[in-house]
């Protein structure tokens, strides 16, 4: 479809509804218009439902041990079988998934917020603020994130997982912040920003009210894709025992336990590994469809 066709179509649409359609409605329409968006959203909703409502369906809690069934295959009593300790795989896996989902979501939101603030301040103020913030960004890029997180793991003893979220977020924001800085530099020269500045609006207000809302699409997409990055980092750290600490469980620690018995008791490995893969896949699909939905140039035929 050529540009004029698109303009015509847009005018036609706008004329039908009398007034410009809201941006949210346009984006949502395009998002749910694609198969990928619908499938990703449905999968993700299913995962959340399973993680938060699923435990109420099962008979066992994640701390229960069934001393009559060690490493038992799936049955009517234990839907997904049991572990070597007698723990119910269904209960433990859902508990771990809940922890992984919450950690991933929070870390992504905190990380993207940090990226937006640091990038916008660096780009808007330029000069020494820019140089200092860019240097800190580079420093964190150079530090091996996995090693630092692992060294700090003794601090995340049981119950301290919010701290883990914060440290995880600290290593998620650098690349996005560089992109935000670039966009801010170009937005800074736009008329609406000049207008606000000449009216005497304070710089921080300009940033939060005029600059950041203008790149909301970038930030939303980035936050979504950060969720899968955060979940993957969290499970990898927990796999080596550096992340979520026992007695709490996460998908990573469950996979680590499951690999030892995977060959003769496949249910200890495949359920948690499968759920992790499906979750990450769903998040990636949602992120990718969101990017297409926000991008006015994408979709609809060949480029």
């Amino acid at each position: 479809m050529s540009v004029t066709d698109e303009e015509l179509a847009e005018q036609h649409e706008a004329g039908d509804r009398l007034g410009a359609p809201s941006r949210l409605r346009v984006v949502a329409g395009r998002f749910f218009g694609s198969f990928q968006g619908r499938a990703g959203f449905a999968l993700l909703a299913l995962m959340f439902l399973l993680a938060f409502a699923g435990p109420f369906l099962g008979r066992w809690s994640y701390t229960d041990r069934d001393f009559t069934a060690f490493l038992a295959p799936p049955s009517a009593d234990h839907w997904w079988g049991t572990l070597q300790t007698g723990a119910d795989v269904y209960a433990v896996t859902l508990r771990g998934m809940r922890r992984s989902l919450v950690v991933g979501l929070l870390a992504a939101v905190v990380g993207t917020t940090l990226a937006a603030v640091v990038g916008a301040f660096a780009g808007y103020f330029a000069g020494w603020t820019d140089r200092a913030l860019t240097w800190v960004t580079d420093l964190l890029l150079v530090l091996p994130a996995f090693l630092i997180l692992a060294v700090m793991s003794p601090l995340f003893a049981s119950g301290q997982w919010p701290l883990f979220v914060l440290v995880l977020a600290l290593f998620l924001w650098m690349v996005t912040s560089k992109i935000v800085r670039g966009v801010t530099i170009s937005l800074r020269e736009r008329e609406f920003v000049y207008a606000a500045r000449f009216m005497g609006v304070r710089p921080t207000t300009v940033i939060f009210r005029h600059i950041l809302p203008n790149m909301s699409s970038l930030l939303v997409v980035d936050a979504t894709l950060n969720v899968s990055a955060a979940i993957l980092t969290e499970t990898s750290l927990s796999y080596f025992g550096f992340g979520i600490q026992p007695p709490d469980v996460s998908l990573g620690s469950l996979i680590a336990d499951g690999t030892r018995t995977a060959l003769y008791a496949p249910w200890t490995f495949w359920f948690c590994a499968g759920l992790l893969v499906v979750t990450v896949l769903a998040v990636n699909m949602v992120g990718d469809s969101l990017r297409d939905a926000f991008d006015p140039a994408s979709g609809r035929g060949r480029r």
Partner: protein
Amino acid sequence: MAGFLFRRLLNYLALIAVATSLAYALAATALNPRANYEGRNPPIPPAVVDARLAELNLDDRTPLPERYLRWASGVVRGDFGRTVTGGSVNQDLGRRIGVTLRLITAGLLLGSVTGVLVGAYAAVRQYGPFDRLSTGVSFAVLAVPTVVLANILIIAAVWFNYLVGAHVLLVSGEATPGMPGGFAAQAADRLRHLVLPTLSLSLGLAAVYSRYQRNMMLDVLGADFVRTAMAKGLRRRTALVRHALRTALIPAVTYFAFTFGALLVGTTFTEKIFGWHGMGEQLVNSISANDVNTVAAISCFAALAVLAAALASDLMHAVLDPRVRMGADR
């Protein structure tokens, strides 16, 4: 130009120094080497432990600045101190870097070449069956974390060996120790060890590269110079390979440098799961063993690798892209 490069290099060196110092300070505060000597039977006298820790510069009773200065003065002379067991960190890591290089070279080459070819072909036949298939597969592969992928490969290999009735694929280590036979037998043995780790590395890389290359190729396919190449009478294949693919390769090649730098310390999972004694494995082991000096040395090496990769990718970009090269000459 020379002044710009010099300033950039100086900035890199400062970044490495600060990053390594931060890692050392963090490791020296958070890790507790004294714990290694606790719970032994018979118990080790405290005086002996103190003397040993002081000798290794790991004594938590010495103030941190003092320990840091002693460590830093060694690093400036190129000596990263000693491990918790008393060996030289330099020697240990020097041996391990060889293992890591032998591990990642094949995986990186296989992954990037496959990815580039798949991505380029998918772009040429956009929305065709191959494009749809490769997009779906790469999405699925990207959702599988290395820990899961490596373990699935091990399960598959055990099953394959059982099916064939012989140990064809070996899942642990770099080579069978004390393997009899000449060069050919040893090479075959190494190859059988290499198959699974290489697959676990290259699958993920191929997925990333194919997505990347597909986007780049799509950008280039619509460009005027490709149309001109075909308009002047070149065959479609020649125009696509010589003009489109060559141009679209530039970002992939610069990305290659970054992947290489990141993998030098980043193959932790592959090394740990397949039992290769490389840098990544030592990263996890040194933290479990409270080995402060090794942790600091690995951070220094990682920082060096990242910045060397950044520099290399800039250079490669200049070599491959005539516009950058001409701009520099002017």
